[in-house]
């Protein structure tokens, strides 16, 4: 992490909490190439241990709501909506995985999988799970750039 970024934190703490780090690629600026995203969204490497947490936590990625993952069997209740993620690290490149996690609809047309790094284009967006309205400029991405990187790092450990 660059020291400059750290110094900015206290000053912009409020804005950053919503918008993510200043060095992040903004949701609207992510470049998809055939669904894949080549560069790290946060500019940093992902941490697989943190990614595991994101994938199994209901308020975060909650990926196991829809996917089974054998290596996450210590967490109860895996869903059956999508395919198992076992071996995903062998099936897809890092860039493809980053693209799928950021906006799966760019890889799988019309996918039911939520777009975790997107901020606009919604119908009746709500303020989290309150059922109340949220305006698009108040919305944050479902996951932060670093959380996406952490999840991608964990997915890469899922080899056949």
């Amino acid at each position, binding site marked *: 992490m660059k020291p400059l970024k750290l110094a900015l934190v206290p000053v912009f703490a409020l804005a950053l909490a919503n918008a993510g780090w200043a060095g992040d690629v903004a949701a609207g600026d992510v470049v998809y190439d055939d669904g894949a995203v080549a560069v790290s969204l946060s500019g940093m490497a992902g941490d697989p241990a943190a990614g595991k947490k994101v994938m199994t936590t209901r308020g975060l990625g909650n990926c196991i709501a829809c996917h089974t993952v054998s290596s996450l069997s210590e967490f109860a209740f895996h*869903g*059956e909506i999508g395919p198992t993620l076992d071996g995903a690290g062998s099936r897809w490149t890092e860039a493809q995985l980053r693209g799928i996690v950021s906006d799966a609809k760019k890889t799988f047309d019309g996918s039911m999988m*939520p777009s975790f790094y997107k901020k606009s284009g*919604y*119908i*009746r967006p*709500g303020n*989290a799970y*309150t059922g109340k309205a949220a305006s698009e400029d108040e919305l944050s991405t479902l996951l932060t750039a670093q959380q996406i990187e952490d999840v991608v790092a964990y997915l890469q450990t899922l080899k056949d």
Partner: protein
Amino acid sequence: MGMLAKAAAIGAFAALSLGQAASADEDARLIINGEEEMIVRAAPPAWSPLPELLSGWLFRTVETQRLQMDDFENPGFTSVDSAWETWSLPEGSAGKSCADCHGDAASMKGVRAVMPKVNAENGELWTLEMYINNCRTERMGAESWGWNSGSMVDMTALISLQSRGMPVNVAIDGAAAPFWEAGKELYYTRTGQLELSCANCHEDNYGNMIRADHLSQGQINGFPVYRLKNAKLNSIHARFKGCVRDTRAETYKEGSPEFTALELYVASRGNGLSVEAPSVRN
């Protein structure tokens, strides 16, 4: 069973059902009190995208299913009992009760099976709740009941029970057609930050687990539904609200034109299943 014992037993079931999300026997038959068989699987109407219509009861655990097979075990019946009392209670400036005009509650047989329906007097689509409140405010001179108030939900349970076993048969043509189209549109709209439609979960994925929940077709033939989760009867619109909220969307209000149209469309997707109210779910 005394009320307290009953409450304790329900608590135990609620705890149990959390631990075992897996599906129950999907070939099961729903026979209530050992004599009234419900139609829990039905052939779909010609326009339906579903290969077979399945009651939500089929997707619940054996323990939850059993609670609905005996009216003495069914926790929703406490509410039916209280609505029986309200039925003959005079209220409002006219000093009348429901019974004064409608006689026995059994006169309501068949009403639930065709709700919601277009009110011939004003051309609006009305749900059961709207008909009830109209009698209260226009005919009894009484206060209207809140959509999710105990009095309202209990009364819808009592009235729906009179149609138990009858096939749902809402009209979707004629004056109902534009409302049905509007409801259909809502059913397939992917709302909220999760961008999910009713169809994503209840048409494309019924039978699948989503985390700890076994997805059903999201039918409303069992409403009002007693949920072990919140230990009370729940209205149709309250359930819709919860599902829309869970897509991280701004919900519609109970009684809104949107939810009323959606209710018609969802009801029609169950045309042919028995009215099962009050049913029991987790």
